[in-house]
C-alpha cells in the first residue's frame, strides 16, 4: 500500500490517478460482493437447518430449534460477517468511508440502547407488543443503514 502510494504521489504519467481509482473501486465492489455472498450462504444455511414452528423474522424464537453444531457454525459466521469482516474492510477504505461507517454504527447502537426502554414503556402502556430481540436488532440495523445512506448522499 505504501509503495503504491509513493509511486502514485510522484508519478507524472497522465491518468495514473484514474487508473488507481478504477482498481480501488473494483476492489471495493469485490468486498461488497463477497459480503453479500457470505450473507446469502449464512441465511440459506440458517433457513435450511432451522426446525420448529417459530420464525426468526417474526420474533417467535422460542419455537425454533437448531442443531448445536449448526448453531455454533452460524454464530461464528455472524461474528465473522458482522464484526471481523467489516473491521478488516474498514482498514482498506479511505478515512471518509471510515468516518461515515463509524457515525452510522454509533447511531445504530444508540437507537438500540434507547429503543428498548422506549418500546418497553409503550408496551407497558398497552400501545405496542412486548419488545423482541429481533425487533431491537432491526431498529439498530435500519437506523444504521439508513444513516449510512444519508451520510453517503450528503458527503
Amino acid at each position, binding site marked *: 500500500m505504501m509503495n503504491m502510494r509513493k509511486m502514485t504521489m510522484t508519478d507524472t504519467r497522465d491518468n495514473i490517478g484514474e487508473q488507481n*481509482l478504477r482498481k*480501488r473501486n473494483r476492489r471495493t465492489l469485490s468486498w461488497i460482493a463477497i459480503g453479500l455472498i457470505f450473507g446469502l450462504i449464512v441465511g440459506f444455511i440458517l433457513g435450511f437447518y432451522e426446525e420448529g414452528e417459530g420464525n426468526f423474522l417474526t420474533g417467535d424464537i422460542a419455537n425454533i430449534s437448531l442443531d448445536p453444531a449448526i448453531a455454533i457454525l452460524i454464530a461464528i459466521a455472524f461474528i465473522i460477517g458482522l464484526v471481523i469482516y467489516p473491521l478488516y474492510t474498514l482498514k482498506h477504505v479511505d478515512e471518509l*468511508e471510515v468516518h461515515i461507517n463509524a457515525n452510522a454504527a454509533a447511531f445504530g447502537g444508540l437507537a438500540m440502547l434507547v429503543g428498548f426502554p422506549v418500546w418497553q414503556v409503550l408496551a407497558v402502556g398497552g400501545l405496542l407488543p412486548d419488545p423482541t430481540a429481533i425487533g431491537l436488532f432491526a431498529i439498530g440495523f435500519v437506523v444504521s443503514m439508513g444513516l449510512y445512506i444519508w451520510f453517503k448522499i450528503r458527503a
Partner: protein
Amino acid sequence: MKNRLKVLRAERDWSQAELAGRLDVSRQAVNAIETGKYDPSLPLAFRIARLFEQAIEEIFDDEYAENDND
C-alpha cells in the same frame, strides 16, 4: 474548512477521480474535502500538501488563526 484544493487541481487539469487516485482515497472524499463538508485527517492533509508541493497552511485556510492572534 475552506481550502484551495479545487484551484490546485484545476491548475494541473486533473479531474476529481485523478486526484483521488493519486491520494489513494475515493472520488467522494476529494469532493467532500473540496466542498468543505469533510476536513481531512492530518496524515491526509500532509499527503495533499506533498502532492502539490506546498505547505498545509497554503492549501487549507486556518479559520481560527485570526481569533487566536487577537
